[in-house]
Every structure is written in C-alpha cells, then in structure tokens.
C-alpha cells in the first residue's frame, strides 16, 4: 500500500515539474513572425526586437538582407522556404552567441571577397549552434564555423558557382572548432567541399561532396576526427588530408577523381589512423601516401583506378589487410627499394597469377603487387607513353622470372584467391 502511494506521488511530482517547465518556456519565449506583408518585414528587425530564446518565424518570400548579426540565443526558422538574398553584398548571418538554430531557409548570393570571409552562415565564438535543412546557393563560403564548439551542420544543400580557386571559398569550413557534427549535407561547386583546419573531435557523416574545384574534403591539423559514409565524387583534386592523427575513415566512397593531380585520398603526414571499408573506384590514384605512418587499411575496395595505392618511401608501418584490388592499371607503386615495414596480408589481387592447390582460399605463391613498369614510372613519368607496349610486357616478364629492380619486400605472402567480403 505504501509502495503504491509512493509511486503515485512520484508520478505526480514528475508530471508537475514537466508542466511547470513547459509553462516556463511558454512564458519566457515568444514567437516573432516575419513576412513580406506583416508587421515585421525584415529578419534584421526581428532579431533586434527578439529577446534571448525567442523564435523568429520567417514566412515565404524574398528578403533582400545582408549582414544579420545574431548575438543572443535565437531560433530562426523558415516556413515554406523563404529566400534571403544578400545581393552580392557581404554575408548573411553572422552568429556570435550560444544556442542558435537556423533552419529551413534559402540563403543566396553572398559577396566574394579577398579580405573578408563572407559566408551564408558565419559563426565566430559561441557554441551549440545548429544549421540545418537550408539551401545555400551562390555563396562565397557556405557555412563557416570559427572558434566554436558543439555545433551541428546537418542536411543542408550547398551549391556554389566557383570558377577559380583563388576567388572561391569552401562550402563547409571549420576552423579551430571542437565537437562539430557535419552530417547528410550535399555540397558542390565550391573550392573545397568540406574543410577542416585545427578542428578536433568532429564527426563527418553521410555527406555527398562532388564537383568541387579543388578538394571534396580537405583537412589539416585536425586530430581525432571520424569520417563515415561520405561520398566524394569528381572533385578537381579528390581528397587531401594532412598533418593529423587518430583519424577514422570508414565506409566512404571515392569515385571518379580524375586528373593529373587528383587522388582518391592524398594522405600527407597522417599518423595512427584507420581506413576501413571504403570504396575507391575510377580514380587516377586511389590512395597516395606520403610521410604517413602506422595506418591500418582493411576491407577497402580498389576498383579500376590508375594506381590503386602509391606509397612514397617515407610511408612506414602501413598494414593492408583483406582489401580487394580489382582491375587497377597499377596495384601498388613505390619509388624506393628501402624496407619500410609495410605489411600486406590476405588481400585479393585481380592480377594474381599464382595457384591455390589445397583450395583454402589463400594463394600458395606470394603476390608482388609492384610492377616493374610502375616502379619505372615513379622515376621517369614520361615513360608512361610505353604503357601496354610489347617491349614493356617483355621487360616485365623477365623481371618476374628474375627480379632485379622491383622491391623484394613489398609482397603479400598470403594473397586471397577469392574476393574478401565484409559487412558494412
């Protein structure tokens, strides 16, 4: 009996506190409607009138506004897709507060500048800011986060009109941030799709970054980040990641990054990181690693690339385990004969010519993924003119019988004779 009494008291108390909480909210926060014909006709005006934690509700229409400063916690929501057009003068939102939400807007025509980083949404300082479900068109920078933390950029469509690298900005730009989530955005036509500098503990998930002038994803000095289920397609130079440690890249797709200096991923001074279950398809170079150490690459698929993997001599302690190499012109290319302690184990190589007598799925002869010609190409790039010539085929045959030039220690002792499979 006492127990029942206690339980019902608990329920009563909880219900009461919830009601009080809701009531408090209702009393505190009011909603300011903005519409082209209403009482408040501009977002700037609404922001000026609003108290902290108010909601600004923007009705559909075109608002010609720029440089809207937000210096208090606000919720700004667009209903039926209102458009804020900066008319190529400065940026649109400039946020310097905590707890701001910007959602459901179309932001367009931000000015290009060589001295100021104008953006559709520019965040400096503050924190806990959410930018979601917006369409950002023809803006110099899309979303620019600086010196802030715990923000979310989700489900935005950002399309730029970048013509030249020097006069264009990035779609999503993170500089000196912590704990940012960038998820499910579609970005294109900017200089870099997603850019991180000195930003740590971020999660970049489910984004599609394509047709950007330079890199689909570009990060530097950004440790402890994870990149998952993103798609990077047809970017000018692919993806470049540099000077970072503890990176996790899983389940990403790197596709059709073509060109003289284009890479699926360019890894420059990346340390202690994992690259797993990614797909590299039809890139000039799948992975280009320079000065990168202690990387673990497992279950990646390299298909129809020019070079699946290019390792420069300074890349050490790399482990390639159970990856699939299918139909690449060159599988592994390296410029050095020096033993760099890279391990290849249980990978499937479509050019494997050995046999498997006991049918256990592991080839009985080691596979040497470095072709003589790829070795030659690292030294003499012009010799690419001899690709698929009879002379080179003959040389490679001789090299295979009696190896002289190609590195002895780059080999897979347990090549898989079947395609490796995994669950993503």
């Amino acid at each position, binding site marked *: 009996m006492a127990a029942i009494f206690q339980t019902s008291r608990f329920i009563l108390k909880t219900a009461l506190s919830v009601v009080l909480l809701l009531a408090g909210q209702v009393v505190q926060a009011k909603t300011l409607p903005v519409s082209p014909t209403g009482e408040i006709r501009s977002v700037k005006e609404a922001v000026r009138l609003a108290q902290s934690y108010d909601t600004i509700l923007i009705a559909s229409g075109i608002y010609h506004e720029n440089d809207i400063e937000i210096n208090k916690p606000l919720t700004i929501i667009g209903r039926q897709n209102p458009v804020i057009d900066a008319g190529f003068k400065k940026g649109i939102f400039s946020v310097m507060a905590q707890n701001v939400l910007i959602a459901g807007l179309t932001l367009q025509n931000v000015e290009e500048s060589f001295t100021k980083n104008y953006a559709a949404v520019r965040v400096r300082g503050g924190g806990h800011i959410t930018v979601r479900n917006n369409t950002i068109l023809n803006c110099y920078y899309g979303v620019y986060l600086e010196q802030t933390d715990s923000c979310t950029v989700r489900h935005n469509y950002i399309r730029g009109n970048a013509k030249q690298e020097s006069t264009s900005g990035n779609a999503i730009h993170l500089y000196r941030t912590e704990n940012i989530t960038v998820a499910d955005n579609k970005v294109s036509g900017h200089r870099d799709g997603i850019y991180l500098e000195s930003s740590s503990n971020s999660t970049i998930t489910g984004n599609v970054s394509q047709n950007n002038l330079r890199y689909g994803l570009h990060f530097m000095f950004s440790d402890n980040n994870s990149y998952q289920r993103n798609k990077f397609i047809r970017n000018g130079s692919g993806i470049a990641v540099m000077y970072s440690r503890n990176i996790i890249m899983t389940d990403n797709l790197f596709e059709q990054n073509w060109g003289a200096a284009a890479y699926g991923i360019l890894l420059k001074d990346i340390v202690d990181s994992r690259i797993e279950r990614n797909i590299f398809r039809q890139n000039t170079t799948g992975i280009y690693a320079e000065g990168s150490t202690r990387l673990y690459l497992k279950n990646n698929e390299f298909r129809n690339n020019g070079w699946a993997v290019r390792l420069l001599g300074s890349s050490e302690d790399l482990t390639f385990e159970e990856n699939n190499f299918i139909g690449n012109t060159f599988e592994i290319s390296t410029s050095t004969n020096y033993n760099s302690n890279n391990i290849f184990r249980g990978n499937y190589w479509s050019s494997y010519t050995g046999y498997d007598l006991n049918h256990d799925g592991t080839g009985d002869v080691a596979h040497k993924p470095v072709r003589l010609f790829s070795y030659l190409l690292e030294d003499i790039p012009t010799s690419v*003119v001899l690709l698929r010539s009879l002379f080179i085929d003959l040389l490679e045959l001789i090299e295979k019988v009696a190896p002289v030039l190609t590195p002895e220690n780059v080999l897979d002792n347990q090549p898989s004779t079947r395609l490796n499979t995994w669950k993503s």
Partner: protein
Amino acid sequence: MNSLTKIIKYSFYDTWRSWWALLYGLFFLVISATLLYFSGDFNKAIVSLLNIVLLLVPLISTVFGVMYAYNSREFTELLLAQPIKRNNIFLGQYLGLTLSLALSLSLGLGITFLLFAGTAEESVHLGMLTLCGTLLTAIFTGLAFLMSALFEDRVKGFGIAILIWLFAAVIYDGLLLTFLVIFNDYPLEKATIGLTLFNPIDLSRILILLRLETAALLGYTGAVFNKFLGTALGMVVSLGALLVWIFVPLLLFLKKVQNKDF
C-alpha cells in the same frame, strides 16, 4: 574497266581464294568475340584486343606482303609484257592485297561488334581500333613490297622486312625508353610526342589508349599527351603521320619498280 581496277580485283580474289585472308579474318572474329564474351568489361577487352592487333596486324601484313610480292613474280613479269602501265600493275597488286587484308580484319572485328552491339562510345573505340588496324595493314604491306623490290634475294628481303617489323614493334620502344632514361632531367613531354610520330605502332597504341578510360590514368604526362593528341588538331596530325607512313614507302616502291630491270 581500266587495267588498275582489273589488277586490284585479281589480287583481291587471289588472296581470298587462297583461304589465307579468310583464316585471318576468322582469327580476329574468334579472338575478339572470345575476349568480349569472357571479359565482360568492354574497355578491358578492347585493351587486350589492342595488344593483339598491334602485334599481329603489322606482322601478318609484312609476311603476307613479302610472300605475295615474291610469289607473284612470274605473273608480274607476264603482265609487264602486256601494254599496261607499270604503276598500274604494282599499285594494283598493292591495293588488292591491302584491301583484302583490311577487309578480313574489319569483318572479323565488325561481326563481333554486331554480335555484342554496345553503346555509341564503345563503337567509336572499336571503330578507332579497326581504323588503326587498317592503316597499319597499309603501312606494313607497303614496307614489305618496298623490301621485295629492293632485294632480289627473297631470303634477304624477307629477313629485312621482318627486322623492320621487329624494330617498330619492340626495338624502337627500347630505344625510346633508353632515351627517356638518359635525358630524364629534361622536360621530355613534347619530344616524346614527336618521337612517337616516328613509329606507326606506337602512334596507333597511344591514339587508342587515349580514347579509352585509361587516358585519364596517365597522370601529369598523360595530361600533356591528351592535350595534344586528344584534340582535333592532334588527331589530324597523328592520322596525317600514319598517312605519311603509308605514302612514303609506297611512292618509294613505285619509283623503284619504275626503273627496275625484271
């Protein structure tokens, strides 16, 4: 019907009657069909086919050309006794043989194409391969005829014709590589493009590789090649170079036989 077309017709039927041209065509039919059927990947199949075409077409044309020129010697002498222009006799024989070889090749590749009808892009690739094959046939038949005119001794003529083929197919690339190794410190992209113009086999190979997906795979140097050979101008220049390769040996051959004492 003038004497030239009559002789072309005769040479053409002569080659077909001996089954060789038919076998040659059948060979390409079987090879290309097998490759396309089993590889599943059109581009991969085309690359393999390219290797075969570039190796065999010049070789077969050379061997056929030399054999035909020497074997039809008596018939040629008979024709020379008739009131027919020398140019017509020799040009007719050359064209007859080239046409029949080129036809077998085109039929072999063409029937395969009809069997595995692909996209427009794929047909362009296959068309390009057939075109290069045809041009190579014309080039190496011409070279073979020239050798047969230059050397009375058929063993010598045969040997030198084969040497020319070997030079173009293998040795030239070796020399090119040596050149690239020695002068590696210099920007060689343009020089390399120039040097490939001097070898019809290399030129054909690059022309086709640039069309295929592998074009973009070639990195920086490939981009330089593509910038020249991939454009309309580059196309015209390289096809022009292949035509020069046809006409120079042919004209030398016709000039030689004009004054030759049979």
